[in-house]
């Protein structure tokens, strides 16, 4: 079977598996959130400080919170069927719009961090494998262990201290210079300056994981018979590493990176907070505190989509990397 055929078959299968998965996630999340004490009306009333029983009942009926739970769920599903994520009582705007504002920020931060972690991690891991047991390997091992164990927010704070406070090279927070009215390339350069520190502090932990994993995977592949075969063919060292060793070693790394994307989407809260980065993580956190369940459900739904899409991409990537995957089914 040729490569496009294999890939097409996988895409079809993934699509049909995704529908029940997403539906299950929505319903499960909906009921889970019902367990949380209080609702949006409680929070709003508490913040206003002067709510009467009547105004609270009014709020509840306005947001549909007074309906039976099953009714609320059906309402939500009905909305979803019409491609609407509902309305946020707190922010006073449609959830889709709210998420739409925050999503690009998170995606940019996430992809910058992941890209950096992957490239540098794989390069460092390859170096470690190449020099295994010798000084460069030892130094890099200690370094990666350090980044693996130090929490991201602390790294973030230290980076701010060094690059923003002491050296003054990079901004300490936000995602662009306010009121600068830049366009084109200048705007891009300005945004790039703002993303360096948050992306760096988010990525160092993952970088350490990828470096260590690459090292282990490459050392394992290196002892395989087919590497010896390649050497017996007169393959040069660089080609040996790139074509024969690294390609086989990349398979476990893609699996792990795929899992991390899902985690990063919601797990960037801390870094987003430290750098006041307008992303989804912070929105989700605020939504929890305000019991703004429609926003939270929207974010969870989106996250599940991202995870499913990423998993599918990783599946396809692996089917491309390793022809043995996805052949017999």
């Amino acid at each position, binding site marked *: 079977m*040729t490569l496009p055929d294999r890939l097409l078959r996988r895409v079809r299968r993934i699509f049909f598996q995704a529908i029940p998965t997403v539906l299950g996630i929505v319903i499960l999340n909906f009921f889970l959130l019902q367990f949380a004490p209080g609702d949006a009306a409680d929070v709003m009333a508490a913040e206003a400080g002067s709510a009467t029983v009547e105004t609270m009942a009014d709020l509840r009926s306005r947001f549909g919170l007074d309906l039976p739970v099953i009714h609320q769920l059906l309402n939500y599903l009905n909305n979803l069927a019409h491609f609407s994520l509902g309305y946020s009582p707190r922010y006073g705007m449609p959830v889709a719009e709210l998420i739409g504002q925050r999503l690009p920020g998170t995606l940019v931060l996430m992809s910058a961090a992941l890209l950096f972690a992957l490239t540098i991690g794989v390069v460092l891991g390859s170096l470690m494998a190449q020099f295994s047991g010798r000084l460069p390997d030892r130094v890099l091992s200690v370094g990666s262990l350090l980044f693996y164990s130090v929490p991201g927010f602390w790294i973030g704070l230290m980076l701010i201290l060094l690059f923003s406070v002491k050296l003054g090279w990079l901004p300490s927070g936000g995602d662009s210079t306010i009121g600068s009215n830049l366009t084109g390339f200048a705007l891009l350069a300005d945004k790039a300056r703002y993303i360096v520190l948050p992306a760096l502090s988010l990525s160092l932990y993952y970088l350490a994981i990828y470096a260590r994993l690459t090292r282990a995977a490459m050392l394992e592949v290196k002892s*395989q*018979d*087919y590497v*010896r*075969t*390649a*050497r*017996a*063919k*007169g*393959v*040069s060292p660089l080609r040996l590493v790139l*074509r*024969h060793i690294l*390609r*086989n070693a990349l398979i476990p790394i893609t699996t792990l990176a795929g899992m991390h994307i899902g985690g990063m989407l919601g797990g960037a809260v801390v870094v987003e907070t430290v750098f006041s980065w307008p992303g989804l993580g912070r929105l989700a956190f605020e939504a929890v505190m305000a019991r703004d369940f429609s926003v939270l459900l929207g974010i969870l739904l989106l996250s599940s989509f991202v995870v499913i899409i990423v998993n599918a991409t990783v599946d396809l990537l692996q089917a491309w*990397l*390793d*022809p*043995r995957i996805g*052949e017999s089914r």
Partner: protein
Amino acid sequence: MTALLDVRDFSVAFGASQPVKGVSFTANPGEMLAIVGESGSGKSLTALGLIGLLPRHAKTGGEIRFDGRNLLGQSERDWRKIRGRDIGMIFQEPMTSLNPVLTVGEQITEVLRIHEHVDRKQARQRAVELLELVNIPEARKRVDDYPHQLSGGMRQRVMIAIGVACNPKLLIADEATTALDVTIQAQILQLLDNLRRDLNMAVILITHDLGIVAQWADRVMVMYAGRKVEEGLPEPVFTNPYHPYTRGLLGASPRAESGHHYRQGPLIEIPGSIVSATGEKGCAFRPRCPSAQASCGFAVPPLRQITEDRLAACPFTPTSFVSHVHDASLRS
């Protein structure tokens, strides 16, 4: 005729231990030389030494003269020019010796593209021809297959195609048929035999299967504990073995007519193990030898020229102790 390969006093050492202790042999163009011996005799290390793939910390000694120049001590860059082009190698495990993520075509064209100035299209055409040469049916379709889509015998054919792709002068087959079942073994050996005749290529067959040696080899060399103990034409070596180790090996090969069967009693074996050779001052085989004398422990017995093309490293004539052999092998 000058020999294509002339190995002189070749040794391999890892720190204090010396698994190959100075072997000398030659191989002529088009000749099939078999190297036999049990695990640990140093035959595979010798083979890896011939292609420069010993572990980095291995210390080598002696000379490997190939086509008139010494390969030992040359740079890694020079080794790479020889590997795959002048000397091809096939390994034991066809299941794991091919890269699982590359098509067989990609793996064959790789060696062509490294050593010969061919473009992608020509290389692919050559790969198809090579697959046809090693008798793979529907070569044009198979060239895009991945190794896991082929059987063990097919994969070993692909390995051979890679090994002979650049018309090497020497092909080393390190236990190349051990992992295959018997009918496939015969096919692969027949193929190697045809190829060496067609391409005038010397083949070094490393094996512990004496049946293969008797049937296919032009010359056989028996190794024990890092040394050559006997060498000659297969016929005389097997009908009239000079060295007690060769006799032991022959005695330990189960044969239909011998009447021994593992259901009736233990199979015949050489008593002891090759480990006993460690630290032995005299003949390495002395601890296991049924006819060892006191003098065997003094010094390593030198290779004696028995007849024109027969060498053996035992000072005693076989007739004097033929009868011991059977007793000894049954003793354990």
